[in-house]
């Protein structure tokens, strides 16, 4: 058995299995238990990591476990996070924090009350290109940021457990599920958002093709255009362009990957595509390592519940704008 914190994982789908991989290389944490409603998924993770297969309630009730990692679909985050906090566990919860602000408030309150730490999986803050650009801007290399454009997606609507991504009540669709990554990153970089205006194919003739364009006006003055796409345009990719008073930076994952691989498959890939890359360490690992280190009394960067909540507010404002056709003030 490894020394360090004992982690129980709830949900072993696309994200859960990514997290399970991460704990294998994080020295001061051990994945001891996995719960998933699909036995084969739990089995796959258990046989790779040595974790025992148990129910979610058993894991949360186990006094020897320190940290609960919540990787179930979004609409279930609140229930598991609140239960885990009440059982005195620290919690890592995948983004988006919750499906509604009310749920997110309950999660924050439960963690505050129990005195446990809560981290939200805004992993883009741990991607090397986004970190590098963050520092480029903060070091005043392009001056004050004026206009930002971001892109995320380019793959078909992910098929996952119970087709939950396609269920708007469960996932919040593309805007809440995916481009919240960009909202969070931009808020980290540029500060609070003042106004949101958004359009989406949602509620028009959606037919499993979701595409959204969101404009954010920041209190700093900056204007951002955020594009999200669950329409296949060659597979998952990300882009950003930031223009400032002294220069401009732009990035396109399709043009800058040091390795290009194409594998022809007949069946299509199930599950949400999780980015891979030529990394020193997967950003998902870095993210969890930071949280574990903080729990372990060391230094680390954690996107906490308040941060997760603020980014959630932007995404929900965008959904409101899509629904009402009006600009939404934050």
């Amino acid at each position, binding site marked *: 058995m490894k020394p360090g914190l004992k982690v129980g994982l709830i949900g072993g789908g696309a994200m859960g299995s990514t997290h399970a991989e991460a704990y294998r290389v994080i020295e001061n944490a051990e994945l001891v238990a996995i719960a998933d409603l699909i036995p084969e998924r739990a089995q796959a993770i258990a046989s790779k990591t040595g974790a025992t297969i148990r129910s979610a309630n058993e894991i949360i009730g186990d006094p020897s476990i320190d940290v609960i990692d919540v990787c179930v679909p979004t609409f279930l985050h609140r229930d598991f996070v609140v239960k885990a906090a009440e059982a005195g566990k620290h919690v890592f919860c995948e983004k988006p924090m919750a499906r509604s602000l009310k749920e997110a408030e309950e999660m924050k309150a439960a963690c505050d009350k129990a005195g446990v730490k809560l981290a939200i999986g805004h992993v883009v803050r741990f991607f090397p290109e986004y970190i590098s650009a963050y520092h480029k801007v903060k070091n005043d290399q392009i001056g*004050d940021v*004026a*206009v930002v*454009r971001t892109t995320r997606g380019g793959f078909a609507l992910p098929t996952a457990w119970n087709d939950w991504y396609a269920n708007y009540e469960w996932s919040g669709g593309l805007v809440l599920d995916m481009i919240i990554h960009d909202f969070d990153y931009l808020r980290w970089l540029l500060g609070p958002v003042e*106004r949101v*205006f*958004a*359009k989406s*194919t949602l509620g*028009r*003739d959606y*037919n499993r*093709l979701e*595409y959204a*364009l969101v*404009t954010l*006006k920041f209190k700093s*003055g*900056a*204007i951002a*255009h955020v*594009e999200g*796409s669950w*329409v*296949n*345009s060659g597979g998952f990719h990300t882009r950003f362009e930031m*223009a*400032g*008073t*002294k*220069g*401009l930076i732009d990035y396109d994952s399709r043009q800058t990957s040091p390795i290009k691989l194409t594998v022809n498959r007949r069946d299509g890939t199930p599950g949400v595509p999780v980015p891979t890359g030529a990394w020193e360490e997967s950003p998902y690992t870095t993210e969890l390592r930071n949280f574990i280190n903080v729990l372990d009394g060391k230094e680390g960067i954690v996107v906490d519940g308040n941060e997760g909540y603020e980014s959630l507010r932007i995404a929900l404002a965008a959904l409101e704008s899509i629904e009402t*056709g*009006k*600009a939404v003030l934050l």
Partner: protein
Amino acid sequence: MKVGMISFAHVHAGAYASALNGIPHVEFAGIYDEDEARGAEAAEKYGVAHFKSLDEMLASDIEAVVICSTNADHCHYTVKAAEAKKHVLVEKPIATTIEDAKQMIEACKKHNVKLQIAFPVRYMPAMVEAKRIVQSGQLGRILAIKGTNNGSMPGGWFVEKDKSGGGAVMDHTVHVVDIIRWMLGLEFEEIYAEYDRLIYDIPSEDCGMLTMELTGNVFATLDTSWNRPKSYPTWGGVTLTLIGTSGVLEMDAFGQYYNVYRDEATKAEWANFGGNMDYILVKDFVDACINDKPVKITGEDGLRALEVALAAYESGRIHQPVKIEDIR
């Protein structure tokens, strides 16, 4: 056919002048410019007559004029040319107000002369090919559109509202609006805009971001910002992404280029080989005049594009979407 040019205020004047000199059945007959020195210099450069008075040029046997004045002067010059029975090719945007645009359209109709707006992007080979792909039906039904028309900050009268009608929004809304109308046959119904002066110390806005509702349940965004720094490899560009029910089309109108790294330049450069759209535009206008055919880009096309820019300004003032019909 003899053609004259009115005003070299706009930076595109040189490209049209070169085009006029290159078209076989055109005689570039002369230049009038309200700035006499600028007119004399241009006349010398292109080897044509310099008219010191507009009336003199309009009284000559030219049959058409190309107008490259400030946006605010388009109306005055177009109406005068129409009254003198000269066909008109006028730089975009058609005008700075709806009243002016309507007056121009009326005058040309009344005097039975042609009025074409200079939207050269329609003639770019990449755009012609894109339209062919759209019409082939491969994309299915169009759901959404993402456009950009970014550029460097032009300075000069472009930032003075009384001459240009606005800033980055006025300058860079109309091209993409026209391309969308032409390529997809859609009309613009409601406009939301965020714009601001964020980069340069100028009187007008330098950044603009429009979100638009179109006919056919389609939405679009358009980035009009003058945000290309001096070190950028080129002046800017036009891009358009179409999201269809059965395909996605990504277009970069100036995407036919190669990289150039010269020690004498202080930056990397993009050398474009995408064809001379200004030449094709002017030639098409001249052909319409000679053969008495309808022009491809009408005054109404210019007016529709202008309406979008004007609605964007109104939206930016009230921070809510504005219906086009409400500003007509």
